[in-house]
């Protein structure tokens, strides 16, 4: 594996152009470019050092379009054959200038520039292939929609490359494959499900810290909204979207709650429990008071047949309580409770699902009830704790004294009892 990647890296460095050292014939002055047949005379042999299958190349987009070997391997176009061992790096930008310019701005290009000799970052052929490049519409292509995760996974699912490239997110392809998007692609073969490039871009993959990136925090809703447009609108109307647009850096975007690569179906238990903790990571007070209620206790035990945050507050279209659109507003609270508690009344809905027993201003009756119960418990356990301990100690001593007093003869017995009594005092 390691060797393969070293080779890969070496290939990236020197292009695909190095050939074995059999160039001994003196140079001629013939200016005519070599035809593919001439190249394949040597390279067409599968046992050659750098074999190129005529059928593979013939089936590739370049082969189909009549691009010749020397269109890419320009430095040997007119070179005398056999040509030099080392050839120049192939420059895709010669024809594909626009994608190449995009690639130059990408995190892959950046990494390669930072360490030209050792970088494991992807270049054109790592994703597209070399002699076997096929159009993205071809199911055989590495860049075919359903193959993209595997293509990116050649590096982002490879422990060695992840380590050498210092890729912080780790084996992200594995995470993605198990996510709702990964499953949709992998199992359902859904062409509309997003692959890596739909969120990250293809040539212009940028860091999430780059304001121009599709995955930069404030750009995430628009990126997800490319498919989830309705949700995007609801989110943007809601309190989180409004806060995000007003520049609140704590406001959650899609990936804050749903994660980026491990997005789950929202009807599974694990999601419901996970998103609760996610809400609680910002709404620390609310999760604490929620845990004091039956709802919160049940979810804490890992069961979900009870109300979690979104069941009352909504998910994307959350509004402040004073907003009549809010599911917990005075206008809508009864119908919200009724979702589970059929027949709920306004009086029923006045239950405080986030009551805080330590907050006298918000929950005065609960505050005093809690104080009373605490005092009662402390008093009972303190009193009987002491009572029991004293009783136990006395009983043990009394029994010891009785045992010592019983068997011996009368005079001795009297002595022992006296001793025991003295000890007891």
């Amino acid at each position, binding site marked *: 594996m390691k060797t393969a990647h070293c080779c890969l890296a070496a290939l990236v460095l020197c292009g695909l152009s190095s050939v074995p050292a059999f160039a001994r014939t003196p140079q001629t002055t013939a200016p005519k470019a070599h035809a593919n047949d001439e190249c394949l005379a040597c390279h067409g042999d599968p046992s050659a050092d750098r074999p190129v299958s005529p059928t593979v190349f013939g089936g590739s987009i370049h082969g189909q379009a009549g691009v010749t070997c020397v269109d890419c391997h320009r430095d040997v176009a007119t070179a005398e054959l056999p040509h030099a061992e080392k050839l120049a790096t192939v420059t895709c930008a010669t024809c594909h200038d626009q994608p190449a310019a995009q690639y130059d701005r990408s995190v892959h290009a950046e990494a390669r520039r930072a360490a030209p000799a050792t970088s494991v970052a992807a270049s054109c052929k790592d994703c597209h292939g070399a002699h076997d490049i096929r159009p993205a519409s071809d199911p055989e292509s590495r860049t075919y929609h359903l193959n993209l995760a595997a293509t990116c996974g050649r590096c982002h699912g490879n422990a060695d490359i992840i380590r050498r490239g210092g890729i912080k997110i780790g084996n992200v392809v594995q995470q993605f494959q198990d996510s709702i998007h990964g499953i949709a692609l992998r199992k359902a073969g859904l062409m509309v499900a997003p692959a890596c490039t739909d969120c990250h871009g293809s040539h212009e993959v940028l860091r999430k810290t780059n304001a121009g990136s599709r995955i930069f925090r404030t750009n995430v809703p628009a990126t997800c909204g490319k498919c989830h447009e309705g949700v995007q609108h609801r989110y943007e109307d809601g309190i989180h979207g409004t806060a995000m647009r007003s520049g609140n850096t704590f406001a959650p975007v899609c990936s804050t709650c749903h994660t980026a690569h491990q997005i789950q179906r929202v009807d599974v238990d694990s999601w419901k429990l996970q998103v609760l903790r996610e809400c609680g990571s910002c709404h620390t007070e609310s999760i604490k008071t929620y845990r*004091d209620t039956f709802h*919160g206790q049940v979810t804490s035990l890992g069961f979900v*047949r009870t109300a979690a945050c979104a069941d009352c507050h909504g998910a994307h279209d959350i509004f402040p309580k004073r907003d009549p659109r809010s599911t917990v507003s005075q206008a809508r609270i009864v119908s919200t409770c009724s979702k589970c508690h059929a027949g*709920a009344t306004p009086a029923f809905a006045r*239950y*405080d699902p986030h009551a805080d027993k330590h907050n006298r201003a918000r*929950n005065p009756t609960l505050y005093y009830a809690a104080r009373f119960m605490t005092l*009662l418990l402390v008093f009972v*356990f303190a009193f009987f704790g002491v009572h029991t301990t004293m009783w136990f100690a006395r009983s043990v001593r009394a*029994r010891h004294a009785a045992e010592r007093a019983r068997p011996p003869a009368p005079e001795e017995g009297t002595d022992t009892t006296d001793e025991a009594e003295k000890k007891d005092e």
Partner: protein
Amino acid sequence: MSSAQAALEGGVQYLRFDRYHRVLHGLLMLSFLGLALTGLPLLFNEAPWAAVLARVFGGFHTAGILHRTFAALLITVFSAHVFRLLYRLFVNKELFILWGPASMTPQPRDLVEMLRHMRWFLGLGPRPRFDHFTYWEKFDYWAVFWGMGIIGFSGLVLWFPLFFSRFVPGWFFNIAMLVHGEEALLAVGFIFTIHFFNSHLRPEKFPMDTVIFTGRVTDEELREERPDEFERLTAERALGSLRVDPAKPWVLPLGRTIGTVAVAVGLTLVVLIVYAFLS
């Protein structure tokens, strides 16, 4: 009872708890343990053992059904007890259950006996001469009585919130939730430590007092532990009518088994609660 049989069974025996008492106490134990096992996971939901225990009882939904079933049993036990009290009071005219040496009602002598008992703990005086119910037995009884009222009522409020919301304001449910949990903690903590010690685990009784299973105390026990009662009953010439045959041979082993299981479950729960508090 023949004298030979009496000797075999360890002497003369008197009836302390009749079958009604024993059966109710047995059902009380069953429902209390059931309620504790199915309810504590919610109260200590963050402890690692809580989810395990909840799953043992079939998940929170099934555990919830079991909890309500045990609650219904306990309410039945409570009602049966109160019904019998009222019957004894109003039909049998047994007014002595309201006041006096054989009454469960706390009386001045209980305070005196408590203070004397504590003086004895310190080795400063003799053991008090108890009568039919000691002050700690009365505390046990009234703690459970109060507890059942509080925890039973709050439990019903939580069980039927829509019904109760017709009469009580919303914050009442918050209090019901709090009180149900805190009172549960008090009851469980008290029964599984203080009651277990007072009635079973203290050196005089260790490993357990089987009177609640057999209903019988020996002549020796009565003279030693409740000398005032012994003398009072002797003076009233009532002792003879309390003399009973020993319990059937299967009663004691069964009682010991039930008692051992109950104490084991209770003490385990105490350990789990302490663990939850410490972590």
